[in-house]
């Protein structure tokens, strides 16, 4: 076939062009480190890469969520640690204060120490995270959750929500605990607490006698009425003091106990009802009452701060009468149980935060693994295999040089060159 000179030049030029383009493509791949630079390089891989990239981003979001969840939970844990220390100190002080040998002055100094602990507790309950958000207010995290009202009593101003975070595709983890759950709850299985009405001389409320109690102790959790709230009432029946126990929740068989009171002596009198034993001692006045209530139940809502306030009240009051002494003993008694419950509860919440921190570690491990997989997949999809590419680079270089050489040869092989 005839070859026209134009064809010869054009073909060589086209061949150089093509070789150069391919050489540059490999060059570009090497420079970017990516096999797939444009979607058209490998449409399937490019589109899959978008998906893998998205999974990777979502995994990263969960990882970020875990960081902030860990932050919140660690802070909760550390604050609760302090709270449990404070409750323990309060208990130690109470034990100290319950000694009969202490004078009013001694007790007042304990009271001031107790007040210090009380204020510490309020401070802890109003702890904030790094951003100035209150840890224990539920959703109401923009204001202190525990504030003193006009009477100096601490009230909860938060709500009962716990903020959750998505720490993994299918796990919504609560990352905060609200103040209600920590400071105003009892652990499940908390027992009974007995208490006498506080004495308020101005209002004339409180027991007139000086009966005190020990217990109540649980004897039989299967007994009828266990779990209900009771009230022990003393009734002067024409000279004979009777002790009457009423079930407040189930009034059908009231009174559950109606017997003569014999606890005026040294040993006291043990009264049994609803699976409970309580020992009463001292001289009651007619109409005096002792409430025997399920902790955290409808009648006896748990509240660390009101317990502390009560304790401080009796510590500060002079023990100048049998009634006052009885009030002091009874209040301290009840407070011990309340503090025990609170401590248990705080420890439970803390343990739950700890468990969630552990879970975060586990999920972190899984997440990191997954992230690694995604990275690998993404790399397999779009990244460059340098070994292959470098050999291709050399090949393309040779090809380009060959085509240039060919052009040079064609250029010089003209008949005109010989016609001189």
């Amino acid at each position, binding site marked *: 076939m005839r070859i026209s000179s134009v064809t010869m030049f054009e073909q060589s030029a086209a061949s150089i062009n093509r070789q150069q383009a391919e050489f540059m493509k490999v060059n570009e791949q090497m420079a970017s480190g990516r096999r797939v630079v444009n979607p*058209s390089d490998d449409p399937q891989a490019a589109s899959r890469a*978008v998906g893998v*990239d998205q999974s990777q981003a979502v995994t990263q979001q969960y990882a970020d969520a875990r960081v902030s969840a860990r932050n919140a939970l660690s802070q909760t844990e550390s604050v609760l640690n302090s709270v449990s220390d404070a409750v323990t100190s309060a208990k130690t002080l109470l034990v100290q204060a319950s000694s009969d040998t202490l004078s009013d002055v001694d007790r007042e100094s304990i009271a001031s120490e107790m007040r210090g602990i009380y204020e510490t507790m309020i401070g802890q309950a109003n702890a904030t995270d790094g951003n100035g*958000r209150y840890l224990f207010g*539920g959703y109401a*995290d923009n204001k202190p959750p525990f504030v003193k009202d006009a009477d100096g009593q601490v009230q909860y101003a938060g709500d009962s929500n716990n903020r*959750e*975070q998505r720490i993994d595709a299918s796990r919504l983890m609560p990352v905060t605990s609200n103040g209600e759950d920590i400071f105003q709850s009892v652990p499940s299985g908390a027992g009974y607490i007995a208490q006498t009405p506080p004495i308020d001389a101005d209002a004339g409320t409180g027991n007139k006698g000086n009966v005190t109690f020990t217990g109540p102790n649980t004897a039989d959790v299967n007994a009828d009425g266990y779990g209900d709230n009771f009230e022990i009432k003393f009734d002067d029946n024409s000279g004979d003091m009777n002790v009457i126990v009423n079930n407040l929740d189930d009034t059908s068989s009231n009174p559950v106990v109606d017997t003569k009171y014999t606890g005026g002596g040294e040993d006291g009198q043990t009264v049994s009802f609803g699976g409970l034993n309580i020992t009463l001692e001292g001289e009651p006045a007619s109409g005096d009452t002792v409430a025997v209530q399920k902790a955290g139940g409808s009648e006896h809502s748990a509240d660390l701060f009101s317990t502390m306030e009560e304790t401080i009240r009796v510590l500060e009051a002079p023990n100048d009468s049998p009634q006052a002494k009885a009030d002091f003993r009874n209040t301290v008694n009840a407070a011990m149980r309340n503090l025990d419950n609170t401590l248990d509860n705080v420890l439970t919440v803390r343990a739950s935060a700890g468990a969630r921190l552990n879970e975060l570690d586990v999920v972190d491990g899984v997440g990191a693994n997954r992230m690694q997989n995604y990275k690998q997949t993404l790399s397999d999809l779009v990244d460059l295999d340098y070994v292959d590419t470098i050999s291709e680079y050399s090949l393309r270089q040779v090809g380009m040089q060959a085509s240039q050489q060919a052009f040079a040869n064609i250029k010089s092989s003209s008949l005109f060159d010989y016609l001189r």
Partner: protein
Amino acid sequence: MSMFSTGLSGLNAAQNALQTTSNNISNVFTPGYNREITQLGEGSVGSGGVRVNDIERQFNQYVATQLNSAKSESSALETYASQVSQIDNLLADREAGLAPLMQGFFSSLEDLASAPSDPAARQGVLGSADTMSAQFRSFDGYLQDMQGNINGQIEDEVTQINNATKQIAHANREISLARARTGEAPNSLLNQRDRLVSELNERMDLRLNVQDGKTYNVSLPNGQPLVTGTDSFKLEAMQSDADPQRTVVGYRDGGGNLVELEEDTVQGGSLGGLMSFRSETLDKTQNQIGQLAVSLSMTFNEQHRMGVDLDGNQGENFFNVREPQAYSGSNNTANVDAIRFDNGNIDQLRATDYTVTMESGSPVVTRNDNGAEVDSEWDSGTNTLSFGGVEMTFSGTPAADDTFEVQPVRRAGAGMETAIGDLDKIAAALGPVQPMPYDQVDFQGQSEDRLGETGVINEELTSGEIKKGVESGLEPFAFIPTGAKNVTIHLYDRGADDDIQLFTRDGKHLIGTPVEGTDADPSVWEGKETDYTWKNNADGIIIKSANDVEENIFTLINGFDEGTKYDSSHLLNRKDKYSADLSDPATSNYADMNFTYTGDGNRFDTSPNDLSTDTNYREERVNIDEVKEPLFLLVSGNGRFDIKATWDDMPGTPGTGGVNGDSGPIGQVQGQLEVSDIEVAPAFQDMDSDYRPPSFAVKAADDGSLSLGFFGADSDNNLFVSPDAGSVPSNPPPEGVFSVYKEDGSEIDNVLSVNSGGADTLAPGERLTIKDDATGKTVLSFTVDQLPTGGTSGVTFTGRTGTTGPGDNRNALALQDLQSEDLVAGSATLSGAYGAMVSDVGNRTNITQVNLEARQGLTDQLEAVQQSESGVNFDEEAANLVKYQQFYQANAKVIDTASSVMDTILNLR
């Protein structure tokens, strides 16, 4: 013939040959040049010598045509490839692409969920939303620029094509003139013309027809001529009739008419490449971006509106969305009045444009990308058409062949922007409110459900016409609305003792047969076969007591309020008489309605039609002078009956369940009502779920008066309205369900006429409390922040109790979760849809490049073939030069020799 002349002819031929060769050499790189060969022939007989027969142009029409068509295709592919690779490059940008920015946006929502009230996290959300939406806009801007460029390029191409066709026509003329003069056409003219044809083919695929082997005629693939002989016709770049933004190619025919060419008529060449790139890839990619933008914006907005912002207000729209575009054909009778996205059907949006054509009374919708017909809903009453996630209203009823071009999402990317600028307005919390779900529900129509299945009487009957063979039983036959005048009902029983019964909506039995026996001995009537009147045909239920009526007749489905008590104290019962006219009637009056009645109200028939002589066609009649409150008409009996009714005035509209104008239906809810401080009481959950009022709407009339409505849905999702705007203009409403109180404790008695001069008023900022009438407990209270000034706005309560606060991140979590939901066309996540787009464009680019290479190879090959025939080869010409030089020298030698010979002779002395 002398040696001289022989030598001279040789010299002459050699000169010609040398001239041709040098011409070949000088034109070696001239485009369109065809190699020439000097054809030598012997001189004429007897004279000897040589002569130049022809300077022959080496041109092969067959190869040239093949090459032209190959060039046309590769030129198309080349144009396509250069355009599509622009999009390919756009999507290649990893850092600034849409996918990483969407990821960034959802990551910022994660930060928001971690610290919902943190201004930094909120700023992060707004910032990343701005960046993302800016990228959507810039993507669309880039693609729109390409659209603009293509429009411009089409104009250029068309101009070039017109130039070429004009020149071809001119060349045709020159060539035929030259032929006429010399019988031969100059090679250069022929080359020029062939080159023009070749150039033309690189712009567009055209048909070449060589007439008589001389004249070139060029026509479009569909046969329309561009060049015929010495005439040329023009193409013109014009606005598409369907879409004024689009430049298309038009053909101006001999009559001067401009006709738009179908886009697929233009094939091949750079013009064809542009057109097919535009319709195959550019439109689609732009639509895909738009679809992504709308799907994201609309679903995000919906979820965002369910939330509560930092100030405790309900969330607003987070993104602005550009509404769909629609163009009406220029010859249409109707235009597009309004077009908007169909909130509830966003998952039906597709990345395509549509053409709507009016055919035989209803519009037919076809997709532009694949030509498939799409399901649509057409409401000829309101001229509203909905399909594919779009709802459009026409200015009038479109005539046959009216066409509309609808581009739901084409430019949506351009309109995407963040609608809120205030950090506090990000609704990260979840509150007790959600957007009005029935935002286009016509509550007037829906209130029919409240009337159960009972229709208005003028739906069942035409005044004065008898309806035969209706089954009797315990279901109301019809409903007579308030305001009906002089209604007479004629009942003809067919032998099963059918009787007319009239009830009020609150359970008063006004006309008909007693349900309880007055006979002390129930055995006389109870369970007797002969008890035909109060017996249900279908299931054999026999009505024997008030309780039976309440259970079987006073049901929601029949249109009675639940708990309606039967009351027979106003019953008009004419025990033993009936007559075919009203001459000897029994009469009664209830609530200012006068009843005239002739009928057999005897329950204790011992046999069918015991009082009848004409056993098969007894007639009963009842007349009501003016209906003052709605009445249910029921025909009890155990068979079939015929019925006729006449009236002077009947306000009810068929199909609306007896609604009449006075009752002021709430109508369509058009917007969100702003309320705040919503408190959902626990009693809300305790309330009978059929009557819980989750939705509240306010309708403002032109005179400034308001109607309040509470809407609920029963377990079957039937909507009800309370008060029953559609049926009973109850006053005071809403009786027995719930009551509306203001903050000062006063009750709003007539919620249908608030601020209309009566006692009931409502001002913005007032707090409303809803109490359950059954328990007296508060179920819901809220403050109305704003009242509509026209139209109806509504709000829906989720019934979610509990509180919210700045630390509430529930809606932020829900918003974040959207990234994993199938938002796009209901089948793909956002990143999935983006990935599909990347794959689409990548594949398209890849295929185009591969095709281009293959096609280019073929073209190169054909070019080589063409060149092998028509191309100049230096070596060959060098040889020719040497050859013809020697030829010349030899002939010169001949003359020289002849001269020496002559000299020899002359020198003979």
